[in-house]
């Protein structure tokens, strides 16, 4: 029996770094989407329904300066979609933690960060699919990008940057909560005020003054305003609007950095704590 140990052929192992390992995790997460395309409903059918609902049901009664309501609406819906990437990442992570997949990964000689990096990248891809679907829907109902290619691209870049920061929030929530149901409950409670108490679906100018302050300092409003400005979708910031709406591109970048700086350490600590004991 002791000879059997020696005759076992050695296994060739190549060194793979964080990037390759993360890409493997991304491959696995994307396979999930392929196997369960309904996972994409949250970034496809749902926002499309929102778009149609707002564009045709509520749109008529919301007055917007400088553009058709549908043009005004699309950046708001896109911001909402990218904010929901934290939802995607939290649900995915909680699932993997609950099912022991994270433990399995952690028992392997691989970088532990690759679990999170892989999760983040695949969630961004997930949300980007949503953005693409929204853009196509928008183009079909009359939304246009009117400020040139560079500005259009910058707006998409801002969306992804903001999505990246929200992913840290998602990792934090996913590491803290124990079940997918809890994540869903918590995220809906947080995401709805965050994406509705903003300029996403209606201009802030008509809100009660206290609500207007909250809405205009809401990071989602900065992102929406930046996209509107860069795509030329109307409703320029009012003269008395809060600072972030006056400088929405800078504000969006700043908000993304602030959210990342706050939630990335929290998320990593929570993930480490959750997966240590």
């Amino acid at each position, binding site marked *: *029996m*002791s000879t*059997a*140990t*020696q005759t*076992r*052929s050695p*296994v*060739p*192992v*190549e*060194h*793979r770094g964080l990037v390759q*390992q993360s890409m*493997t*995790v991304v*491959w*696995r997460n994307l*396979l*999930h989407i392929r*196997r*369960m395309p309904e996972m994409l409903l949250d970034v496809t059918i749902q926002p499309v329904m929102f778009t149609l609902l707002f564009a045709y049901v509520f749109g008529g009664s919301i007055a917007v300066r400088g553009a058709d309501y549908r043009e005004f609406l699309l950046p708001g819906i896109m911001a909402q979609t990218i904010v929901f990437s934290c939802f995607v990442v939290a649900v995915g992570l909680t699932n993997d933690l609950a*099912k*022991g*997949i994270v*433990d*399995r*990964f*952690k*028992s*392997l*000689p*691989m970088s532990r960060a690759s679990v999170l990096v892989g999760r983040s990248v695949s969630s961004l891809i997930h949300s980007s699919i949503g953005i693409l679907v929204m853009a196509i829907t928008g183009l079909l109902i009359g939304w246009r990008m009117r400020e040139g290619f560079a500005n259009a691209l910058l707006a998409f870049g801002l969306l992804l940057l903001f999505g990246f920061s929200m992913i840290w929030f998602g990792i934090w929530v996913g590491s803290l909560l124990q079940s997918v149901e809890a994540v869903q409950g918590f995220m809906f409670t947080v995401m709805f005020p965050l994406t509705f108490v903003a300029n996403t679906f209606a201009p802030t100018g008509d809100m009660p003054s206290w609500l207007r302050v909250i809405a205009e300092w809401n990071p989602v409003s900065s992102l929406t305003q930046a996209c509107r400005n860069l795509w030329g979708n109307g409703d320029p910031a009012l003269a008395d609007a809060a600072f972030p709406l006056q400088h929405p591109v800078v504000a969006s970048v700043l908000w993304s950095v602030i959210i990342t700086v706050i939630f990335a350490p929290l998320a990593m600590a929570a993930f480490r704590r959750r*997966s*240590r*004991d």
Partner: protein
Amino acid sequence: MPASDEEGGRMQRPSTTLSEAAPRFSAMTRTTAGLGSATAVSGAVTAVEAIDLVKRFGETVAVGGVSFSIPQGSVLGLLGPNGAGKTTLVRMLTTLSRPTSGTGLVGGHDIVKDPAAVRRSMGLTGQAATVDELLTGRENVRLIGRLYGLPMAYLRDTTDDLLERFRLSDAADRLAKTYSGGMRRRLDLAVSLVAAPPVLFLDEPTTGLDPRSRVELWDVLRDLVRDGTTLLLTTQYLEEADQLADQIVVIDRGRVIASGTPTQLKDEAGQASVVLTLKHAADLSRAEQLLRTCSPEVHAEQSSRRLTAQADGLGDMTRIADAFETSGIEVDDLGLKRPSLDDVFLHLTGRRAEADDQPTDDDASVTHGSKTEAGR
């Protein structure tokens, strides 16, 4: 396991062919316990060592200073009821959980100082089969192989071999969520073996399996040990530790309460006895008198028409059988009961092991049904 080995094992240890509940000893086929005993005895290299491992969660002491060692190529059974600290011990040894104090060595590497080297030299099959349900069997193996850093061509061959070996070839390209419990366990094991780790940790590998799948998994584990793998397995199934382990460490409330070979532990728990069930309750007192002529200690139970007599072994049992044959007292059932590991646990702790769903060989077919796992 070749047939001759089985025979040999049964000849040396007739006790293992007789279960407490089933006197149909011809129908019972158990293979030798303690597969790697050859190396265990020669005490070659230590593959796994726990050195005074302690794990506290706040005030709760999950593991309170546990030490043991496993010689290379042998099997250690970590036996204990739910909540005894088995999983926590495995999680510490597999670097998933950091010990509060103490340490351990796996493949010669320190679990606290060099966890990365430990991860390279071991495989883990956790308590729940951690297969990815949305991936096929093949993709599950390849995913872990890629994360290990195995070259693609090598991985392709290894994946095919493993799936073949675990009889999953036909189901290789089906999603794991369509697999039965037994198939999931086998896939989980295949995944753990993709990088051929010299040490394998199995946390309750057969929990939730029907008896047939359990026996199949035992065979797979025996093959692994024959190929030189060192196993640490935790179990609440006393029979399982008896079947597979060379050494058993019994833990209760985070502490080692006994250790030794299955035979040693059983000897400690006391003597064998003959258990006999009468056909007619009316014969009870006559039967009791008759038994007293063969055995120094006899217990009679009116309600179950059952008598228990201390006995030394098969010889005593044969004598008792002959005596009843001659007396004409009709007997429903006669069997030799060796102390089981359950008795060991009772003896050590004064409590029964709290394995709530441990199937005995007798009721297994009734309570667990016979789920087939052929391609559904």
